[in-house]
């Protein structure tokens, strides 16, 4: 089931060779470990460039958005089975 969230989220990020990947995040007082970054895409919104990270753990799929203008993270979307 999809759920639109759009809430700020704290994200721990791994910087690798030419890659930036969310590794762990805290949302609604719970910590989630990212098992896999499945997809990354970007979109321009005026002068802002937003990077979207579609990530998952064993039970959920999340979409995290990083605004290059605000340098802030948002939990955009959640998909849970069932």
């Amino acid at each position: 089931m999809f759920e639109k969230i759009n809430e700020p989220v704290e994200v721990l990020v791994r910087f690798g060779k030419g890659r930036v990947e969310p590794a762990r995040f805290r949302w609604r007082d719970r910590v989630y470990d990212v098992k896999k970054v499945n997809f990354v895409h970007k979109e321009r919104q005026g002068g802002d460039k937003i990077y979207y990270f579609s990530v998952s753990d064993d039970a959920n799929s999340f979409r995290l958005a990083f605004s290059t203008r605000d340098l802030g993270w948002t939990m955009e979307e959640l998909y849970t089975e069932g």
Partner: protein
Amino acid sequence: MEKIIMHIDMNSYFASVEQQANPFLRGKPVGVCAYLSPRGCIIASSKEAKALGIKTGCSVAEARALCPSVILLENEPAKYRTTTERIFRVLEEYTDKLEPYSIDEAFLDLSGWARDLKTAVEIAETIRGRIKKEAGEYLACSVGLARTKFLAKFAGDTAPKGGTFAITEGNLEAALGGRALTDAWGINTRMEKRFAALGIRDLLELKRYDGGRIRRSLGRYGYYLWAGVNGIEVAGVSAGAPAPKSVGHSYCLPKKTADKEYLGSVLYKLCEKTGRRLRTLGLEARNITVGFGYVGEGGASRSRKTADNMFTTEEIAAEAFAFLAGCRLLMPVRLLAVSVSRLAPVTGQLSIFGGREKGKDLSRALDRINDKFGEYTVVRGRMFGRETAARDRIGFRKIS
């Protein structure tokens, strides 16, 4: 040098990108829709959805009737464009002639880059692996190889999903035998009927027909199709995407109505989107087509050559509104469309009918503001309250 053309077609593209982004959608019937309203149209379905009969063109209501548990998602153009950019970046490394044909299809001229067809098949495998590694492991593509663009496309459409099919002189007739005329690129049901009138019922019969007679009976286009199935190159692969012939937008209205005020505000937004793209491309237009569709069947459209070039949204809107004002709406309208054509690069030519430069400068200034601060930061009063209508949609022939 052996001529080798490769055609790459991404399988169930938008649905596969969605399944790439969300692994919990894999193995499930997924449909990507233009709109999620019951009359909204499926623009891509996953292989699991296709197996249940949910195909491209199906309405949301039909898809739900076929499979109540189908997962329907609204399309996200930014996702598909990002993926296409990644895929085309890979493809660019294998040729100097890459022709993007649509958001999920491309032609590569491998002549001089691949020694022979065997090497081209190996390149196809390498590309397939790199797409999985660099764009997403769930993305699959079909590859067609042949000596001409037409046959490469036919081979690509014939190849199994995720596989490669090569057409050579040796297997050409076997590949064409028993295949419907409409299976080939550029043959629609109307053309099929014209071929049938000559006694041609399948692609092999077309190949064996007398080319001169085809030309006399069906003209140049008929001859191109005959040349296509005979492995005679007509067009060739161009480097880069061909210049657009038209720019336009259409919108299925959430509110079906004959209220001209409401229709006008949406129409203005379509003109603004059309104008924005036209200006981004650095083009002006000399022809406009405006149309609408009624709920149920029917509608009207008008195409007109304009007295002067159109560049600003106001210039496009003036033509579109003249059409709408002259129409007597008999039923509620469900669809509006605007398109401009006869495109040419912007010139500094002054108009003899009056100063257009001020309007052009204003348009450019508004575009710069909206580029910097986001779409619809500044809008005309006519569009007020309709900023969220007719939002970005993806078109198959649109690369960007």
